[in-house]
Every structure is written in structure tokens, then in C-alpha cells.
């Protein structure tokens, strides 16, 4: 019987990671589901949901992992695809770099009903005056107004834009 597994691979960035890993998976008939692959600092990180008939994935990927010096972690993905993953709010936050921005913003918004679907952060600005940028897509379970109210209580000096997403279907 076919099943889904979730692969996480991390290693130093270098050309060819995506093509070599996906070729190794295709060669043993693993089909890809959702994936997320990105450079993070000088590392490259990949998460891939793969559909296969119970293969020993760590063994099959041993070659490519040692060649590219990738760490591999495999989870059994029992629940499969998440059906309720439609964001209805987009949030951008930026400000002077300060540890704890993500923690304060996300915990405040979570208490106001935010369910995060996608969050990305980046460091920018100059070395002596770094800034922190965060983009979030999520679901406002208690409505977008609840989030904007909660945002007013955030003490960190950050700029914040909360914009409802009204998905068009046509």
C-alpha cells in the first residue's frame, strides 16, 4: 500500500541539490507532493512530502546524502494533505532587529486567533543597524479585526501591516 512520508534535508548550499535529490526520488518511483525548498543563510533546506510504496527512504537516499553532505530526517506523514490551508490574512512586520520580535508578535496574534500557515523572516539593513522582516500568511479564526486590536498591544517598535486576503474564485 502506498503511503506518504515527510523528508527533511538540510546541508550547505551548493549547485545541484534540488535536481540530485529529486532525481534520486524519481529513480525509485517516489512521487512528490507539496515541497518547500529554500536557501537559508548559506544552507539549503528542503521539506518534501513523498508518496511511495513503503520504501526504505534513508537507505535509498544514502548515496545522494553523503555526496551532498545532507542531513536527512524522515517522518511518517499519517494525516496526509491538509485540506483547510486557505489563508485569509496577510501580515508583514518589520523593525529594528531585536530578539524576541517573532515570539512576541506570533504569541500575541495567536492569542487573538491567528493560525499561521506560512511564516518567513529575513535579516536586512546594515550590519550596525540590522532590521528584521517577517511575512505571515494565516487564518484569522476570530476575524481580522481581532488581530488588528491585538497588534496594538505589541510593545516592540515594529511596523505592522495586517491585510485581509479575499481569495477570488472564477
Amino acid at each position: 500500500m502506498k503511503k506518504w512520508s515527510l523528508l527533511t534535508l538540510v546541508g550547505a548550499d551548493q549547485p545541484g541539490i534540488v535536481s540530485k535529490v529529486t532525481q534520486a526520488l524519481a529513480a525509485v518511483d517516489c512521487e512528490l507532493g507539496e515541497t518547500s525548498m529554500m536557501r537559508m543563510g548559506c544552507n539549503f533546506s528542503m521539506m518534501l512530502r513523498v508518496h511511495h510504496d513503503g520504501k526504505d527512504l534513508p537507505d535509498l537516499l544514502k548515496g545522494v546524502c553523503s555526496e551532498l553532505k545532507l542531513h536527512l530526517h524522515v517522518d511518517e506523514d499519517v494525516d496526509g494533505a491538509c485540506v483547510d490551508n486557505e489563508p485569509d490574512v496577510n501580515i508583514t512586520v518589520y523593525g529594528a532587529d531585536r530578539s524576541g520580535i517573532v515570539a512576541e508578535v506570533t504569541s500575541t496574534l495567536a492569542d487573538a486567533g491567528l493560525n499561521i500557515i506560512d511564516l518567513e523572516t529575513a535579516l536586512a539593513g546594515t550590519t550596525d543597524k540590522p532590521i528584521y522582516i517577517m511575512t505571515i500568511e494565516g487564518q484569522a479564526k476570530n476575524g481580522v479585526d481581532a488581530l488588528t486590536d491585538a497588534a496594538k498591544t505589541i510593545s516592540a517598535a515594529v511596523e505592522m501591516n495586517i491585510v485581509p486576503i479575499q481569495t477570488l474564485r472564477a
Partner: protein
Amino acid sequence: MTVLEIIHYPDDRLKQESQEVELFDQELKDFVTDLEETRMAGPGAVGIAAPQVGCAKRLAIVDVSGLKKPVDNHGYLLMINPEITKWEGMEKGREGCLSVPDFTGNVIRAEKIKIRFQGLDAQWTEFETHGYEARAIQHEIDHLDGMLFLDRLVSRRTDLFQRKIYKK
């Protein structure tokens, strides 16, 4: 009245350019009735274009008047041989399509457009519209040109011209 079958990508007919409507006859009227019926049957669809039911005619329906969160609109719009004559501004928004089930993605569209089109009586109408209605119209006209929103997807990192509704 009939609910027509919606075709899904990778059906080639969605990638073809549609032909101008020249005959404003009863057959066209009946088709428009069926197309609207089909739109209403789609879950929450604010628009539908003839190619989505396999008919390569330059004709589409848009109606954004029934949204839960109301937006500026011109009500029910039947657009035959529509043309956008002016574009202004850009805005990112999330779109899905009856012909591409189970996927939504971010697309950049003009924020404001001027549109002209014919009605069932072949008379031309022209007006300007913006925001959500303008987005829906652009999505439909793309269908008439054999384009899908998939052809215009942008990365989630693209944060372009977002309207600020809240500033801390």
C-alpha cells in the same frame, strides 16, 4: 437551463484563444443562461468564462455583488467581446479557478482598469472599475486569451503594493 460541465486543466481548450462573438442570436442567449447557471453551481464563483465549459467564444460573466465582505461592484456583468482599454496600478491578490481545483496562489493584477464590452443586444458599454471586480474581470479575460492564473503566479515573497489597512 443546464449546468454545463466545467473543464479542468490540463484540457487543451483552456489554453486556446477564443473567437469574437459575431452572432447575437437566441442560441447565444441560451448559452449565457446556462453559463450563469454553471457559475452559480460552482462554490463561491464570482466569474466564469466560456472556455471553461469548452466553448471558444469571447464571452464571460462576472458578478462580485454577493460577497460576504462587500466590495465596490457593477452587479451582474455579462461581457461579450470584452476589451481592457486602460490599466493602472498593480496589486497582489490571491486567486483560484474553477478549472484548477484545489489550488490558490498569488497573482499581480492591475488595480484599476477601463473595460468595454458588448451585451446580448450587441450594444457597447464602457466603464472604469477597480479592486476585486477589476481583478475578476482580468481573470476572465485571461481565459478568453488562453491564459490561466497559473501563468501569472508570483512568489509568496513578492509583497507588492499592498493596501495598508492597519499601521501600528
